[in-house]
């Protein structure tokens, strides 16, 4: 619901909002220009009487004097049969600038408030402002949901670039957009007379019929400081029944031409003051700095519109059209999908296709549509649940847990739960866990224990598929290719072999970057724009499921380099280690943006073991700016599998690595990398104090050992790896 409230107004109003925001941002510059050009009012407490006298000395035919919210004073006169006007220097009463609004500003203003379509356009633009308001509020709520609460809305974000950009800009500009849209709605309502108006000028009183009293003898003009002036209109020449009309911040009234006395007055009402304040807040007239800030914030709207539409398109592309789903009551298998961005639907489609092939009748529905009493023929229910942010229910699963909790008893149809998530989040598959836990508490029979899929891993999914197939007695081979990017042929340039002596064949493989045709470069496709720490997905011969290897080079290095060790029974690692220079494999890039040094000069602690050295070596190779990078590296034996041993010495010599510490598990000392960390605990504690970022790459066991060691080392500082992770200062690439 909340997401729909954000998505649909956003998509429908995107173009309109871009026009509104860009024209608004451009308009925000004018009050600042005006403020700079307005002659400073040197005399504090200058009265309207003196100002008006000065102006009338210069322009005897003056008819009207206005003070704009910016402080600019404009005089209008009629002399020698022609009208004239100028911005006035209050010190002299003489004109110093043109009174005409710039045609550019007028054009922008009409575009901004009415698209040149008068009242129709005003209503359209007001609808745009209303959409902006709804988007701001629903976006804020979504953000709070995503980060796990209103107190955490400023937390660091993870995920694809478009999404992060969308939210980062929103966080900066949402206050301004809320203010601008609310004031816009008020101003439109005021224009159409939907909010109470001020009383207006008092009715014209009877006057003395005399004329000629000097302006300086009018007490009301003497007592009104210039800053409070809004408008002073002089009586028509030779009309003794007319009077001076004065409008100030306090109210408006008439001054007798003969006596100089105030003959009628009404105080400004509350609504006039509210109107005036809202006008200032929206236009920046009288608050030029605020106007500029609001203008800058408005510039975020085109970016948010672009990224927002992009995310929607990307999400739609991921959500396949489900074919062959049968009616609720006919299905023997019910798939319930809890998806946020749409990728889980893709997995559901793969599962459905495999089950259909096996002869089962499958009904696929969002988890929201959970209705166990209607699954008359179902023999099993499968829940595929993503997690939104910090363990929150994804969009298409809203209300599922409530509905389950409200059931008098658990359904008799057995259940399987598969969670989709990202291990770099603290609550990995948090929502799926919650579903499984409630099912267990309800006594719902489970077909198999909760399964998990990390970062859309096809391997995890295929593994779960085999377990699930075994549980239901149907052999299942799930080949899911999440976003199926086109792979390219990679040619091996060189290989360096290690580890033969310690029975752990390992190699550093370097591939040439294929030449990219122009159209690929223009469309950003092909093998490009990768950095060390991203993943190279290799499609082994005879398998559709890619294996991921951390890249030890960026595209600027001109080659793609990975470290591979032979896994027992590993199809892909065996093929890779059998490659000779000139041979090719197929692969593609998967970005892994969270695993790389953050910007800045803070120290970086690199910790890795075995082939986990790959991306760390890549970071060091790229570190030509000589940022302090400290490497802790674990291997088996210095003579056998010290990957990048030669480079490490060279990088240390030229400053790309500040320190290198090694630990070997097959030497007499029998040390692991976590032992080296504990040994250097004082140095590490100091680096963390200095703001260091920690990057860990290697096997799951090593990463756990490292986290444990760092927990102990950081405890005196009141820090934990989890706290650092939340701050974006601790990232793992674990396999």
């Amino acid at each position, binding site marked *: 619901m909340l997401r729909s409230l954000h998505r649909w107004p956003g998509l429908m109003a995107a173009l309109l909002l871009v026009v509104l925001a860009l024209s608004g941002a451009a308009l925000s510059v004018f009050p600042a220009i005006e403020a700079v050009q307005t002659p400073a009012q040197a005399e504090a407490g200058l009265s309207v009487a003196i100002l008006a006298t000065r102006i009338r000395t210069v322009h005897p035919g003056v*008819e*009207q004097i206005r003070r704009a919210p910016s402080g600019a004073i404009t005089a*209008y006169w*009629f002399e020698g049969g022609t*009208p004239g*006007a100028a911005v006035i220097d209050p010190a002299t009463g003489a004109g110093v600038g043109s009174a*005409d*609004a710039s*045609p550019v500003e*007028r054009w922008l203003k*009409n575009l901004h408030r009415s698209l040149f379509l*008068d*009242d129709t356009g005003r209503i359209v633009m007001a609808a745009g402002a209303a959409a902006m308001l709804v988007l701001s509020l629903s976006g804020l709520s979504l953000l709070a949901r995503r980060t796990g609460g209103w107190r955490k809305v400023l937390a660091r974000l993870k995920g694809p670039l478009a999404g992060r950009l969308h939210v980062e800009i929103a966080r900066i500009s949402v206050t301004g957009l809320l203010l601008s849209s609310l004031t816009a709605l008020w101003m439109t309502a*005021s*224009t*159409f*007379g939907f909010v109470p*108006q001020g009383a*207006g*000028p008092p*009715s*014209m009183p009877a006057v003395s019929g005399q004329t000629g009293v000097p302006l300086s003898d009018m007490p009301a003009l003497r007592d009104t400081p210039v800053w409070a002036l809004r408008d002073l*209109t002089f009586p*028509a020449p030779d009309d003794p*029944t007319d009077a001076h*009309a004065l409008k100030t911040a306090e109210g408006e009234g008439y001054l007798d031409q003969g006596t100089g006395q105030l003959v009628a007055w009404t105080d400004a009402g509350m609504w006039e003051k509210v109107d005036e304040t809202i006008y200032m807040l929206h236009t920046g007239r009288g608050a030029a700095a605020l106007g500029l800030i609001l203008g800058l914030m408005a510039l975020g709207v085109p970016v948010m519109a672009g990224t927002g539409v992009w995310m929607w398109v990307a999400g739609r592309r991921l959500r396949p059209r489900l074919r062959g789903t049968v009616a609720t009551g006919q299905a023997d298998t019910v798939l319930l999908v809890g998806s946020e961005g749409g990728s889980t639907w893709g997995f559901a489609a793969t599962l459905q296709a495999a089950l259909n092939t096996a002869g089962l009748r499958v009904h696929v529905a969002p988890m929201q549509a959970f209705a166990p009493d209607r699954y008359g023929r179902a023999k099993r229910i499968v829940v595929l649940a993503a997690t939104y942010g910090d363990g929150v229910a994804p969009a298409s699963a809203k209300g599922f847990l409530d509905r389950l909790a409200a059931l008098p008893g658990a359904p008799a149809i057995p259940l399987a739960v598969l969670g989709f998530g990202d291990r770099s989040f603290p609550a990995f598959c948090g929502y799926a866990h919650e579903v499984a836990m409630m099912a267990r508490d309800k006594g719902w029979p489970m077909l198999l224990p909760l399964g998990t899929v990390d970062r859309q891993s096809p391997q995890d999914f295929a593994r779960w598929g085999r377990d699930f197939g075994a549980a239901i007695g149907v052999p299942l081979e799930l080949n899911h290719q999440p976003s199926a990017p086109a792979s390219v042929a990679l040619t091996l340039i060189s290989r360096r072999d290690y580890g033969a002596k310690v029975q752990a064949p390992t190699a550093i493989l370097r591939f040439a970057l294929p030449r990219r045709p122009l159209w690929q470069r223009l469309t950003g496709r092909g093998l490009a724009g990768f950095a060390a720490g991203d993943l190279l997905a290799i499609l082994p011969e005879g398998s559709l499921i890619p294996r991921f290897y951390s890249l030890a080079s960026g595209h600027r290095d001109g080659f793609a380099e990975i470290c591979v060790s032979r896994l027992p029974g590993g199809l892909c690692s065996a093929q890779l280690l059998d490659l000779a220079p000139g041979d090719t494999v197929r692969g593609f890039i998967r970005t892994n943006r969270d695993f790389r040094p953050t910007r800045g000069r803070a120290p970086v602690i690199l910790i890795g073991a075995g082939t986990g050295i790959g991306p760390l070596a890549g970071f060091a190779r790229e570190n030509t700016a000589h940022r302090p990078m400290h490497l802790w590296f674990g291997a088996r034996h210095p003579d056998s599998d010290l990957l990048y041993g030669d480079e490490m010495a060279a990088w240390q010599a030229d400053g790309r690595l500040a320190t290198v510490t090694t630990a070997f598990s097959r030497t007499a000392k029998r040390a692991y990398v976590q032992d080296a960390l504990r040994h250097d605990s004082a140095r590490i504690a100091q680096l963390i104090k200095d703001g260091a970022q920690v990057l860990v790459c290697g096997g799951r066991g090593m990463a756990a050992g490292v986290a444990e060691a760092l927990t102990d080392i950081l405890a005196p500082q009141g820090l934990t790896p989890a706290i650092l992770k939340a701050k974006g200062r601790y990232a793992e690439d674990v396999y």
Partner: protein
Amino acid sequence: MKTLLAALALSTALVAPGLALARPVTLTTTMSAYGGDGAYLAIYVTDAQGAYQGSLWMAGTKSKYYEHLSDWYRATAGNTAEINGITGASVGAGRELTITLDLADALFDAGYVLHIDAAVEDMRDSPSEIVVPLTSAGAGQATPGRRYIASFAYAM
């Protein structure tokens, strides 16, 4: 061309009791290229002493801006009942406003004066920009305005 049949808010004394005593009068107001947004115009009639008699036309629909038509506003206290049914769009720079009304014969050659107040957003107010006596002889003669109105004429 806007045609109104005796739908005038003029005081009853001036409205002809029957159409026989009225005649169609065309008022043509040509705006100058004053370089601003659409102008609000109030067209109304006073007697020779300047006392307000009634309104003929209001160009501009948003009552919150009527106070800038200051002579008309002072005479009517901004009462929109005065212009009920005789309101149209504001008139852009360089444009022409033509209205045809059935005006009572008694309005002509009797000292009545037609006024036009004009106002434009972010520009000066121009009350009584046109002040022209209603006479049979004056019909068809153009009167120039002071600020926004290039010329005004009425034809019978």
